[in-house]
């Protein structure tokens, strides 16, 4: 069973020591002999590499499918003619629409094969039973477009029926038709400008060969209807052009410029693709960072396990190394032997891990789906560079983790061959080694905390990276302090366990504190997972509490109608008008997002119904007036800002500020009000009427309603609901429910983060199982004695189980302390971002502890079984 004390093998191996080749021979023989103890190391490397490769493959795949999506979305478009940017640059530019007559002018230019106006916007399909297709929160955009029907300009093809021939006909994509179970000729409702429209399906289309356009839902109207329901009558977003000779694009572009005048911008299809791609990358950069962060976590946790396994096996092989040294092996050869062994494990396991990476990427994808985040479909893309990266990282982590144990092996004195090998050694407290450890561990922890603090304060080029590295350093420092803390912890927790569980409990406690280093580095892997879970739990609870507080304090409206649109589409403006006419209602304001260039700076602004807004949102004390002296609001020539913005930009009530909206016209707006804004953090506010006057056709994201005097909440709620009923995308909440809904926005992301961290905890569990298995191998004889003198199998199992629980408990305790520290620090740092509450949620954290302890029980299952099943006689002979 053990191979080490197999004397002929050792002798055989010692003869072979000499050159590099023979070192490798001994290494490989060593590997074969230890296959079982290296199995979990290999598994840890494998999982780490699989996770790294999986995240890289997933991000590659997503990038590729996004790229493909943007290329396909503009397939056939050689040139595009559009309005110049009103403000903003490149992909962020905001521009006006173009007149529909432009299409004919462009089409008339020599070399143009086809030209068509394109209009797109928000349009959401609603099935017969009110089912809404598309969900922006999940990344499934509901898009409306005009049907172009020219295969030179876009890939949409009718597979059934015909193009829309009237204002009440639509073509929908085949995926949507399948989901709604509708066919050509069936009625369908479409939400767009003007509210809900009853339409008839005239045709069903595919996007090239695909049933839908990369996971979005598309509904297509005839040109005039599209302009009316999505944009502006008589105008297009852009005119797209297919050329007779695509190679002549530059020449034809110049001709078009000459023909349509300098007021238009002519760009290539490739530019459209690049701009769309750039917008996407902005959105997905965060996703990329998060995924890579988790890959790093998985590798670090795996690194602890690798380090631990090699540390233990090197200690167990002390005599063997000493024997090699005694008969003349140099330190370099012993070092080389252990390092080669680790490299071999690293290489093999990383190779297997790469294979698993593809599976992991699929798993991650479905994980996002489970939590309601749709990723675009597309074939798996495996880039060579990603594979090389994941492989190299896996091998490097393995080699690095094995370095310290290998150096220890190389230091083995030949005389150790003659001694009883002291396997589970420990440094008693107060010794020099321990003092160095305390000093180093504390220094690293503090340095990490410092780095985090300065990162959180926004120092450096990349504060997030600084925070991440600081966090890792804190984990590393605490892990270094672990051995010093393990004994006190063991005494603290072990006492009760020993008194409850009797002899097995006492054995568990003593075994867990027998080698504080081993216990600590095993626990460290779990500490990282638990620390991050604890941190996220505290952060999420704090964010939710802060949102809840912000909404509760900042919203004085009785009722909120929420569209769930996040700015793309929403509630038709007619809702505000209708609600205002209700006798139960005293004040109504919508709220919509837009952007503007204000005095040279591009800024987000909100459009509100300013006459009522101040009665619906608590903006604190106000200089000037939002409603204006006559109560009609800000009108078309005034804006309101909060005190912070006013102070920053040097504005006060009465200041005149130049503002550019999407139409490109520069308006001079007077600051009509400066609000204290203690709760919400509002961007500059204008009246929605101003946005409409600039050609924008806004939707309200939310509509706030105050009840008339003497009308109770339920009455007004019912009144609002009956009006909002015609808009299937409207959700009507009272204030408390709205606060809850807003706080709930954190949940899907939280779910994904927990699931990813569960992976780190899983790797840590393997580490505990591995350490226990190795320890049990060392204690075979001891277990034999226990069994011989009357310990039952159940008692042996219990001892292993409780040892495992203690290790897990130690990791959990350290993790929770660190997690609480991180939570506190990050929440404090986010105070200016509106995270004003620090909440330490006891029930979720208690669940974390319960799960972590259960992890300990789970990790012990196999080692405990092996310990209990040891043949007593064989164990006694070992």
């Amino acid at each position, binding site marked *: 069973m053990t191979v080490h004390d197999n004397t002929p093998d050792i002798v055989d191996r010692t003869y072979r020591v000499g050159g590099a080749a023979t070192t490798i021979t001994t290494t490989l023989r060593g590997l074969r002999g230890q296959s079982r103890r290296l199995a979990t190391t290999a598994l840890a490397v494998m999982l780490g590499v699989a996770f790294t490769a999986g995240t890289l493959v997933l991000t590659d795949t997503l990038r590729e499918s996004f790229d493909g999506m943007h290329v396909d979305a503009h397939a056939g478009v050689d040139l595009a003619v559009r309005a110049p940017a009103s403000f903003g640059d490149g992909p962020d530019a905001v521009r006006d629409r173009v007149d529909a007559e432009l299409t004919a002018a462009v089409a008339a230019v020599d070399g143009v094969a086809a030209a068509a106006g394109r209009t797109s916007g928000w349009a959401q399909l609603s099935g017969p039973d009110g089912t809404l297709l598309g969900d922006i929160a999940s990344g499934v955009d509901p898009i409306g477009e005009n049907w172009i029907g020219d295969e030179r300009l876009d890939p949409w093809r009718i597979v059934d029926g015909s193009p829309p021939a009237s204002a009440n006909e639509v073509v929908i994509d085949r995926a949507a038709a399948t989901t709604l179970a509708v066919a050509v000729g069936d009625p369908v409702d479409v939400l767009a400008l003007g509210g809900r429209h009853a339409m008839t399906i005239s045709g069903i289309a595919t996007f090239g060969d695909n049933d839908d356009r990369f996971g979005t839902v598309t509904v297509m109207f005839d040109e005039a209807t599209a302009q009316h329901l999505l944009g502006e009558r008589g105008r297009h977003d852009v005119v797209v052009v297919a050329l007779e000779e695509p190679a002549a694009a530059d020449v034809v572009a110049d001709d078009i410029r000459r023909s349509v005048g300098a007021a238009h911008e002519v760009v290539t299809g490739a530019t459209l693709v690049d701009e769309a791609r750039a917008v996407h990358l902005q959105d997905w950069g965060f996703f990329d960072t998060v995924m890579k962060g988790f890959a790093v976590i998985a590798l670090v946790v795996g690194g602890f396990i690798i380090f631990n396994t090699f540390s233990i096996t090197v200690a167990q092989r002390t005599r063997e190394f000493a024997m090699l040294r005694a008969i003349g092996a140099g330190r370099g050869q012993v070092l080389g032997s252990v390092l080669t062994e680790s490299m071999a494990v690293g290489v093999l396991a990383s190779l297997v891990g790469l294979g698993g990476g593809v599976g992991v990427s699929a798993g991650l994808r479905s994980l996002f789906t489970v939590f309601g985040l749709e990723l675009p479909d597309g074939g798996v893309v495996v880039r060579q560079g990603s594979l090389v990266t994941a492989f190299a990282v896996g091998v490097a982590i393995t080699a690095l983790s094995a370095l310290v144990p290998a150096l220890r092996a190389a230091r083995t004195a030949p005389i150790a061959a003659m001694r009883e090998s002291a396997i589970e050694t420990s440094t008693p407290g107060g010794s020099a080694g321990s003092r160095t450890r305390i000093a180093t561990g504390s220094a690293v922890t503090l340095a990490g905390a410092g780095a985090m603090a300065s990162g959180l304060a926004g120092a450096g080029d990349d504060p997030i990276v600084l925070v991440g590295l600081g966090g890792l350093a804190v984990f590393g420092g605490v892990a270094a302090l672990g051995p010093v803390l393990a004994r006190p912890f063991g005494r603290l927790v072990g006492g009760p366990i020993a008194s409850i569980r*009797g002899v097995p409990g006492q*054995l568990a406690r*003593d075994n867990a504190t027998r080698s504080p280093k081993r216990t600590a580095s095993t626990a460290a892997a779990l500490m990282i997972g638990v620390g991050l879970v604890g941190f996220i739990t505290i952060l999420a609870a704090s964010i939710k509490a802060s949102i809840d507080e912000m909404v509760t304090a900042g919203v004085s409206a009785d009722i909120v109608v929420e569209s769930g649109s996040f700015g793309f589409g929403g509630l038709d403006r007619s809702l505000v008008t209708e609600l205002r006419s209700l006798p139960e209602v005293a004040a109504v304001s919508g709220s919509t997002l837009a952007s503007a260039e204000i005095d040279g700076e591009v800024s987000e602004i909100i459009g509100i119904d300013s006459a009522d807004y101040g009665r619906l949102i608590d903006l604190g004390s106000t200089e000037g007036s939002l409603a204006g002296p006559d109560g009609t609001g800000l009108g078309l020539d005034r804006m309101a800002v909060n005190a912070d913005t006013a102070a920053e930009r040097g504005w006060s009530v009465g200041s005149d500020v130049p503002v550019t909206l999407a139409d490109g016209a520069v308006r001079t707006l007077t600051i009509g009000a400066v609000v204290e804004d203690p709760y919400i953090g509002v961007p500059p506010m204008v009246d929605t009427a101003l946005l409409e006057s600039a050609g924008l056709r806004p939707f309200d994201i939310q509509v706030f309603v105050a009840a008339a005097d003497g009308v109770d909440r339920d009455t007004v709620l019912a009144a609002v609901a009956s009006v909002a009923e015609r808009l299937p995308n409207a959700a009507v909440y009272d204030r408390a429910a709205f606060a809850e809904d807003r706080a709930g926005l954190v949940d899907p992301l939280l779910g994904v983060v927990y699931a990813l961290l569960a992976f780190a905890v899983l790797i840590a569990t393997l580490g505990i199982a591995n350490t226990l298995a190795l320890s049990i191998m060392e204690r075979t*004889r001891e277990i034999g004695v226990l069994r*011989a003198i*009357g*310990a039952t199998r159940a008692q042996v199992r219990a001892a292993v189980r409780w040892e495992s629980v203690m290790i897990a408990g130690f990791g959990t305790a350290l993790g929770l302390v660190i997690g609480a520290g991180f939570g506190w620090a990050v929440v404090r740092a986010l105070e200016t971002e509106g995270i004003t509450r620090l909440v330490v949620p006891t029930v979720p954290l208690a669940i974390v502890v319960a799960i972590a302890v259960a992890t300990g029980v789970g990790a012990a299952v196999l080692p405990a079984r092996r310990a209990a099943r040891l043949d007593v006689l064989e164990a006694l002979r070992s």
Partner: protein
Amino acid sequence: MPPRPLTPPAACVRSAVKRYGTGDTAVTALDDVTVWFPAGSFTAIMGPSGSGKSTLMHVAAGLDGLTAGEVFIGVDELGAMSDNELTRLRRDRLGFVFQAFNLVPTLSAYENITLPIRLAGRRIDTAWVDELVGMVGLTDRVEHRPSELSGGQQQRVAVARALASRPEIVFADEPTGNLDSRTGSEILAFMRRAVREMHQTIVMVTHDPVAASHADHVLFLADGRIVDQIDDPDPERVLDRMKQFGA
């Protein structure tokens, strides 16, 4: 063979056959052995390597099963017992002393001595344990860990542990094998005293004629069979008998 006792023997092995492996590679470790271990006596089992002496002890102590035959501790036959029953039997009714590494390294000497009693969840008879500790001369070292004790002291702890639960039989497997002769004879003296003063039954496997001479009876095994017995042995007679195996 000892005379058939008038009182029931502490343990009895009847027609025991123990074979390892199958077919051509089968080894017969015990070949139809029948033996009694009288209560209150000290029996030594001797024999050359491979004679089956350790196997005999292991099957008698319920550490190993038989291919054929029966083993009794008191009146209870071990063959039908489950692992848990055998474990309880060893814990409650037997004591063990091994050659070395007898003790659990994380427990103090006192905890090691009382371990079987605590594993059984029984109350510790402190007066009795103190008496044993005094007898083996460890009164001022009971709080030490095994690593802080000499080999001889460790073995005395092991003997005290074997006696602590007042077992029906103590099985000792080469208890002096790892000790120098002076320390070894101390251990044997304790065992001898336990038999004489406490009527303890002890069965000891040894290859050392001097050790065997402390026993009441010496059984000789060769090739899995009992081939001889010496009562009231002295070292020379045991040595002479052993020499015949070499011839």
